[in-house]
C-alpha cells in the first residue's frame, strides 16, 4: 500500500504553492465502508487525507465538473491549477481528455499512485451489511485486512475486489507529475472472456437481458455525471430543440439513453467502471462499454487513454483501417 505519510507530505508541498487552488484526494466518509472525495485547500486539511483500497472514486471527473461562472465586473479569472490524485485507471481518463483537448496539461498537477486493486463496495457491504463504524484497512499480497474496533479480519482479495481490478492492465498511472510508491509489475493482457461468452448468446436472449436491465433505469444520469469522459457542455439528453431522447421513463427511452451513451464512449471509455459503481439500479454498464472497447481494440488495435501522443480514435485515419462494416 502507498505510504500515507509520503503522500501527505507531497500534497502538503503542492498545496503550499500559490499556483494550486486545491488538490482532490480522499478522506474518511461518514459511515461504514465509505470514503469520500476530499478537496484540500490548505495545509491544515492535509492530515485528513487518506488512501486505501476503499478509495474507489475516479477523481479526474472533478476538473471536468469545475464550474466557470460569469465573472463580476472587476474580477479576474482564477487560473491556478487543480491537483488530482490518480490511480492507474484514473490516469487514463486524463490522457484521453488531454488528447481530446478537453483539458490543458499545464492546468492540472497530477499525483500518481500505484494501485493493486480497490474493494467493491457492493461486495463488502454484502459481507458486513450493517456495520456503521468506519474500519481501518490494510492489505497483504493475497488479502485485505479489515480492522473494526481492534477486531482483525482477513478477507481474500479475490472475494471483494472490483471486477475491473481482477483484469487490470494498468495498475500504474500513465501520466503524473509526482509518483508515490513503487511501481507494480504488470502481467495482465486485455481480458474479454466475459464479453466473448455473452456475445455467443442468442440475439433475442441478449435483447431480453438488456430490456430487463434498462427497465430498472430511473434516468438519474449518475452514470453520465460521474464519468470523466462525459463532459459535453450540453448533453444531448438534455436538449429540447430538437429533443433526441424523450423524458418519459420507459424501456424505449431508457434503452435509447443507455445505448447512446455507450456509443458516445466508444474508443473513449477508459474502463474505470465508475458508471456501474454509481448506478443505483445496478445496471451492468461496464458490459456495454467493455464490448465496445473490445471491438475497438480488435479492429483498430487501439486502447483509449494510453498514449498521449496519439490522436483520439475517431479523429484519425489509417489506410489499413478495417472497413468491413462500411456499407
Amino acid at each position, binding site marked *: 500500500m502507498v505510504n500515507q505519510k509520503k503522500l501527505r507530505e507531497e500534497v502538503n508541498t503542492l498545496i503550499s504553492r500559490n499556483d494550486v487552488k486545491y488538490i482532490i484526494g480522499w478522506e474518511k466518509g461518514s459511515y461504514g465502508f465509505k470514503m469520500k472525495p476530499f478537496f484540500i485547500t490548505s495545509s491544515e486539511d492535509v492530515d485528513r487525507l487518506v488512501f486505501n483500497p476503499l478509495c474507489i472514486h475516479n477523481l479526474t471527473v472533478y476538473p471536468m465538473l469545475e464550474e466557470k461562472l460569469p465573472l463580476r465586473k472587476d474580477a479576474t479569472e482564477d487560473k491556478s491549477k487543480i491537483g488530482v490524485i490518480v490511480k492507474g485507471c484514473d490516469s487514463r481518463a486524463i490522457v484521453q481528455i488531454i488528447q481530446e483537448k478537453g483539458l490543458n496539461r499545464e492546468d492540472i498537477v497530477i499525483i500518481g499512485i500505484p494501485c493493486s486493486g480497490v474493494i467493491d463496495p457492493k461486495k463488502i457491504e454484502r459481507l458486513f451489511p450493517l456495520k456503521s463504524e468506519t474500519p481501518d484497512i490494510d492489505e497483504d499480497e493475497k488479502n485485505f485486512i479489515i480492522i473494526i474496533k481492534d477486531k482483525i479480519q482477513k478477507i481474500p482479495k479475490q472475494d471483494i475486489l472490483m471486477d475491473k481490478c481482477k483484469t487490470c492492465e494498468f495498475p500504474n498511472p500513465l501520466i503524473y507529475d509526482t509518483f508515490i510508491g513503487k511501481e507494480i509489475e504488470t502481467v495482465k493482457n486485455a481480458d474479454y472472456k466475459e464479453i466473448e461468452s455473452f456475445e455467443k448468446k442468442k440475439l433475442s436472449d441478449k435483447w431480453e437481458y438488456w430490456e430487463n436491465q434498462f427497465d430498472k433505469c430511473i434516468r438519474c444520469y449518475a452514470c453520465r455525471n*460521474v464519468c470523466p469522459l462525459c463532459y459535453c457542455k450540453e448533453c444531448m439528453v438534455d436538449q429540447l430543440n430538437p429533443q433526441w431522447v424523450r423524458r418519459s421513463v420507459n424501456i424505449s427511452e431508457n434503452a435509447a439513453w443507455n445505448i447512446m451513451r455507450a456509443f458516445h464512449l466508444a474508443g473513449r471509455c477508459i474502463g474505470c467502471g465508475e458508471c456501474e459503481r454509481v448506478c443505483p439500479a445496478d445496471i451492468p454498464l461496464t458490459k456495454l462499454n467493455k464490448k465496445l472497447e473490445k471491438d475497438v481494440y480488435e479492429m483498430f488495435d487501439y486502447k483509449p487513454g494510453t498514449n498521449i501522443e496519439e490522436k483520439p480514435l475517431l479523429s484519425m485515419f489509417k489506410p489499413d483501417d478495417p472497413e468491413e462494416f462500411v456499407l
Partner: protein
Amino acid sequence: MDDLTLPKNKLDMFLNKIKSDYTVYAPVKVDDLVYFKKIEKLKDITLDFYNSKVPPKSIIFKQTETMFKFKQGLDAEIQTLDDKNKKNVIFGIRPCDAKSMSILDNVFEDDFTDPYYVNKRKNTVLVGVSCKQPTINCFCTSMDGGPADSKHLDVLISDIGNRYYVEIKNNKGKSLIDGTRNLFEKVTNNDKKKRLQLEKKSKDEISRNMKTEGISEKLDEIFDDDIWKSISLRCLGCGICTYECPTCHCFDIQDETTLSDGARIRVWDTCMNPEYTVHASGHNPRPARMNRTRNRVYHKFNYFPKNYNLIACVGCGRCINDCPVNIDIIEIINKAREVKT
C-alpha cells in the same frame, strides 16, 4: 378497532382475497434489489427486505404520468384517461414511506387539488409491515417516526414469530379486512408483548441520529455560509438523492408527439439538474452546484416547515445509502446546526 393476529400460513389466503378486489402492489426482488410491483403471482412477493430501491410514492406519484392523450390535425381530440375508481393496495410499505405520503398530501391538496395524485391516493390502502432490521442509515426515529409507527398507515402488520400482529387504524383498513375477518384471530397478552419487543429491538438498532430542533430557524441564518460550498464541491449533480427520496415531488410537463397523435406527460424532475431553474431568457438563478445542493436541504428543512409546519424528510436513509460521493444529509444537518452565526 381491536388489534388482531393472522397466522403466517393464512397470509396468502388474505392476499388472494384482496387481490380479487384490489390491484395489489408489493415488494418484489429483482436481482439484489427490491421494487414495489404490481403482483400477478403471490410467490413473487418478498417480505425479507430492508426497503425498496425506489420509494412506493412512485405508485401514486408516478415517475411518468400520462395526463391525457390527444390526436392532432383535422380530427383533433383529447382523450382523458380514467383510472379514478381503480382500487389499490400497497402491501409491505414501510412506516417511513407511509409517512412520506402524508407529507406529500400537503403539496398535492394545497390551493390546487391535483387529480392525478389525489384520486390514486384516495383509492389506495396502505398496508404497512414493521421493520425488523433497520439499515445503517435509517434514522426515522429522529424524524418523529419509528420502525413500527402506524400513524400514517391504514393497516400495520408486524412479524411476531409464527403469526402477524395486525393493527387496523381506520375505516379504510377495516373495509380491507372485513371480507376475510374469519382468517384473523384475537390477540393475546403474549402477542402484545412480542409486538412491543419487536418495536423496541428495531428502535435500538437504529444507530444514526439527526437533531432537527430549531433547524428551520438556523437555516435562515446561514444561507450564505461557506458550509454549502464545501459540501457541494464533491457533488456530481446527479439525481439519485431526489429520485430515491420519498418526499421529493417536483415534476416537469411535456408533450410527446408524433405527427398524428401524442400525450401530455409529467415526469419526475430534480433540482440537482441545472436545467431545472433555467429561465426562457437563458438566465439561471441557481447557476452553480452549490445553489442546487443547498436547495435540496432548504426545501426539506426550511421551506417545507415554513409552508406546512413539517420537515419533508422521513429518515429512510436512501439518499445517504446511494450517494456516489457520500453526501450525507444527517451529517449536513448536524453540521449546519454547529455553524457559528
